[in-house]
């Protein structure tokens, strides 16, 4: 059913504003009514401040993530928490963490450490680059002194490609009289092989050397060496320097561990701020007078009294009044069902919420959904597997309320698949008639009422029958809706005559085909015609013009065609069910071919084929069965009695990022 809602106003002292909002956020019960005009309260400037602080904490958390990755500190997740890895805490704990944490210090510290890390890394990169550039010259004995301009000899270091070396040397000997070339290193592993060498020239030829270097295709390399330092010495210092820097980097990371240990507190603080931001957004809908605030919202009717007493206990001066909803108000819609029926809310929620004054279809669709799901799978083996998996998930994992609903729904679905699968003889796609004779075969064969592969038309008839029953039930639901809306005339003139019309028509057809009551065929014929005439004269009653009245009534008989096309839509159940059975059959066939044709390891491979094949078949067909059973509800069933478009009941609560609300794991809200 749809929970009846009450519109309430809560008045409190201005000084209690923050405490009241925190209280309501923790209770998660008041759906705050949108006021047409958003009023910036006295705390208007706070919002941007919160967002700014959130961004800062976020940056610290990102820093932690980076440090974790570098230190290879992975978070462990227990088996039980596989699907709910976040810690759970109540709002007060979050606030506590936020108050206790010296956030500004942590932010400053993390920024400082981050800068240090980046700086050290940059230094290491520069040193490494220098090291690479020096590497070719490591055998050179030249020191800084040799490079001094006071020396009579010039040592020029040259980098030239192997291709150009020959011509380079030739040109050097002709244009510089005192030139002497000596190769230092050669690297052929590059795409362009390179030669590094030293050209020794007398100082008197310096101008000739400069002119020569400008003409040739070679690069002069200058090394910054101190007076007595060789390249090898320099490389050694660089290596030591790199080592030093790397050590320093590790030390900084070690210092950062301190912040990493604060991760949980920081996450709590982040969520505390996030919830503060939500309260600030809620504050936009709060009305202010000089000393008091007034908050308007919706709560389930039966919560008015409990909430009032809880409020009075928590605050010295507070008032909760139920007020009359105005014409244009759209109360939010919350579905409320017994524990047995709660899983089916998951199906309704996919469609969206019905309007507030309409019926909750969750209970009504339950049986039809499960039968459709079971028929679309029709394999008892798969049903058992689904039941086993969902039972284990429910038993061993910590699950949120919405997730639990879905798991329970799949458990029910598995049960119906098991029953309907046994009735149609589907057991992991095994042909039960080919089993060895014995009691197992006999039991399975007795259970099998229909063989869908041999006799698909019979199962098609079953699918249509389910469709007809559900579509007739849709009219019963419409009658219930009309009864609630006090439109009893519509029940008499629309709902009942349409139900009888279809029933009599079907009985007449059955009688004509000698299936049922063949002796009553004439009576049924005239009853059906009378029913049709009744519809012709009543269905156009909203028109004033008498011709239009009858015309519209006659056209309304077209409804029979849409009833038929809606029924045909249920044929998908047969197709999907056959698909599961035959793919299972093919998997078994391939496995048996593998096991008989490959010697020795054949049966192992066959096992793999069976496992992968059946998991795939179950996965893809359970998905299809769920979607198509859902579609039958949304497209064929719902539109007969609900229009939808209700506003979902979303009380002021916690939309968290790092910390779960422990309430979400409780079975009932």
């Amino acid at each position, binding site marked *: 059913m749809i929970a009846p809602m009450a519109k309430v106003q809560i008045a409190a002292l201005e000084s209690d504003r923050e405490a009241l909002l925190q209280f309501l956020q923790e209770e998660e019960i008041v759906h705050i009514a949108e006021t047409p005009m958003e009023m910036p309260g006295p705390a208007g400037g706070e919002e941007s401040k919160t967002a700014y602080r959130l961004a800062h904490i976020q940056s610290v958390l990102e820093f932690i993530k980076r440090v974790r990755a570098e230190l290879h500190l992975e978070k462990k997740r227990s088996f039980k928490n596989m699907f709910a890895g976040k810690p759970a805490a109540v709002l007060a704990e979050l606030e506590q963490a936020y108050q206790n944490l010296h956030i500004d210090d942590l932010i400053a510290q993390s920024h400082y450490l981050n800068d240090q890390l980046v700086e050290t890394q940059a230094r290491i990169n520069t040193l490494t680059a220098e090291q690479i550039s020096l590497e070719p010259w490591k055998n050179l004995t030249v020191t800084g002194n040799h490079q001094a301009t006071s020396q009579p000899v010039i040592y020029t270091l040259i980098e030239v490609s192997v291709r150009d070396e020959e011509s380079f040397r030739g040109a050097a000997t002709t244009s510089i009289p005192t030139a002497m070339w000596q190769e230092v290193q050669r690297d052929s592993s590059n795409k362009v092989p390179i030669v590094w060498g030293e050209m020794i020239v007398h100082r008197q030829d310096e101008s000739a050397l400069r002119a020569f270097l400008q003409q040739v295709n070679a690069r002069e390399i200058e090394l910054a060496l101190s007076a007595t330092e060789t390249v090898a010495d320099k490389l050694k210092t660089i290596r030591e320097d790199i080592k030093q820097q790397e050590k320093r980097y590790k030390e900084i990371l070690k210092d950062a561990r301190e912040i990493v240990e604060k991760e949980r507190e920081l996450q709590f603080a982040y969520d505390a701020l996030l919830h503060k931001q939500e309260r600030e957004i809620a504050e936009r809908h709060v009305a202010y007078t000089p000393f008091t605030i007034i908050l308007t919202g919706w709560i389930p009717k039966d919560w008015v009294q409990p909430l009032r007493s809880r409020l009075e206990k928590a605050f010295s001066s507070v008032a909760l009044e139920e007020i009359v909803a105005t014409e244009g108000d759209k109360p939010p819609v919350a579905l409320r069902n017994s524990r047995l029926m709660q899983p089916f809310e998951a199906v309704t*929620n*996919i*469609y*969206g919420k019905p309007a507030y004054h309409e019926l909750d279809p969750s209970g009504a669709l339950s049986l039809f959904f499960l039968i459709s799901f079971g028929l679309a799978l029709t394999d008892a083996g798969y049903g058992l597997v689904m039941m086993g998996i969902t039972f284990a998930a429910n038993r061993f994992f910590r699950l949120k309320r919405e997730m639990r609903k879905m798991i329970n729904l799949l458990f029910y679905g598995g049960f119906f698949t098991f029953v309907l699968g046994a009735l149609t003889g589907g057991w992991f796609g095994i042909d039960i008639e080919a089993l060895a004779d014995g009691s197992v075969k006999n039991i399975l064969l007795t259970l099998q009422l229909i063989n869908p592969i041999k006799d*698909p*038309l019979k199962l*098609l008839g079953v699918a249509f029958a389910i469709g007809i029953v559900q579509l007739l039930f849709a009219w019963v639901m419409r009658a219930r809706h009309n009864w609630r809306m006090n439109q009893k005339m519509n029940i008499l003139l629309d709902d009942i005559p349409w139900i009888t019309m279809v029933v009599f028509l079907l009985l007449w057809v059955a009688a004509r085909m000698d299936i049922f009551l063949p002796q009553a065929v004439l009576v049924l014929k005239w009853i059906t015609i009378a029913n049709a005439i009744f519809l012709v004269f009543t269905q156009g009653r909203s028109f004033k013009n008498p011709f239009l009245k009858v015309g519209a009534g006659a056209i309304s008989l077209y409804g029979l065609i849409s009833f038929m096309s809606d029924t045909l*839509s249920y*044929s*998908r159940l*047969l*197709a*999907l069910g*056959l*698909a599961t059975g*035959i*793919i299972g059959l*093919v998997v078994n*066939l391939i496995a048996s071919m593998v096991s008989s044709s490959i010697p020795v390891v054949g049966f192992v491979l066959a096992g793999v084929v069976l496992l992968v094949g059946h998991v795939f078949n179950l996965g*893809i067909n359970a*998905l*299809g069965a769920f*979607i*198509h059973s*859902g*579609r039958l509800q*949304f*497209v064929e069933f719902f539109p007969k009695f609900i229009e939808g478009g209700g506003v979902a009941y979303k009380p002021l609560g916690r939309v968290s990022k790092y910390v779960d609300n422990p309430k979400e794991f409780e079975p009932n809200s």
Partner: protein
Amino acid sequence: MPYGLMLAILGAALAAALAGMGSIFGVRTVGQASSGVVAEDPDKFGKVLLLTALPGSQGIYGFLAAVIIANKIGLLGGAPIDSIEVAHGLQILMASLPVGIAGLFSGIYQGRVAASAVNIVAKKPDAAGKGVILAAIVETYAVLGLLVTILLVNGLKF
């Protein structure tokens, strides 16, 4: 009469190939849209994967029809194929058309609807289920095509 058998095999091949092509085009369209969303937010992979898998069912329906036909003409073990008349081969060929053609087009267009539904995942992840249902409405006609092919092949007596 080898031509009869040839025509029947052509039927099985068309069912698998046409419906498979529909799935290929459809999955490609959704897959591209999904990659865009995952590039922005890798956490949404699960939801877009579901949408991407949706137009894949046509290929399975085609495959299924091909297996049923192969079974009917005794290619999967069972009875040896001695002679299939040309008329029978043609009957099987024609019976394969509904799943092939409906699978081809519904695959392509379901892909487009599902790609639009990827937008829903990107903007309103809570409403992703509605996108799945919208895409599933296109699939109805592939399911009906499969049903017609199964009923026709099953009804053939020879």
